[in-house]
């Protein structure tokens, strides 16, 4: 009698898990990402193309200065702009 109950538990848990996952259970803001403009686009009007986030993230990111996706944009002594994305552990991208 216990095995049918366990099969029921398994199927209910699995389908509930898959449903929750497909609805963005872990990352709720993602579920609404397609419905409105992304947060990065709302933060600023100044847009700049980044070569890539870094090797680790491998995002060909078009991040926007002042947005949450960009930690800081600085200019070094050589006059090159250095862009730091929060997901890159402070690794700098040189915007040539």
């Amino acid at each position, binding site marked *: 009698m216990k095995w049918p109950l366990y099969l029921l538990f398994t199927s209910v848990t699995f389908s509930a898990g898959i449903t929750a996952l497909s609805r963005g259970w*872990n990352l*709720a803001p993602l579920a609404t990402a397609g419905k409105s403009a992304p947060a990065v686009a709302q933060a600023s009007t100044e847009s700049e193309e980044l070569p890539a986030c870094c090797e680790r993230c491998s995002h060909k*990111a078009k991040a926007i200065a002042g947005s949450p996706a960009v930690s800081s944009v600085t200019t070094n002594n050589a006059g090159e702009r250095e862009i730091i994305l929060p997901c890159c552990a402070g690794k700098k991208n040189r915007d040539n």
Partner: protein
Amino acid sequence: MAVLKQKSLIVVLANALAGGLALALALTPRFVPPCTHQLETTAGVPVPMHCHWTFQIEFLLAVAALIVAGALWIVRHAEARRIVGGVLALFGLLAIAVPQPWVIGICGNSEMPCHQTAHWLWLWAALLIADGIFIAIRAKNPADKIAPPDPWEKTNATQKGAK
């Protein structure tokens, strides 16, 4: 008799702990959310950060662990309980491994919120490993507890007494 009752209580607690830890693995990203910022690709598509995919896999692992933990209430044979305990420990190991950079990884910056989520998940996963090992070690057949006397030994003892 009291010892037997105590043992079964420990087993019940270990079973319940396994289910609770699997639930905690699944629910932690909801209460301690990972990074929610997004990057926009050159194609204009917003993409989630690195850690998002890690926690998707963690959630699937947690659901699988919950299903396996449910089996603890069904199986009675010691060998089956050892296997279930071992599988739970394996899920714990995988849950610890997934956020490592050599599997999927999380964001590199230690100040990102995903690091806090990962720390909680590592704690639950470590407890799940310990619980799984405990369940596997403590697995005993009901027959082992009240073992019948060995008739062969009894015969030998009688023969030795006769000599």
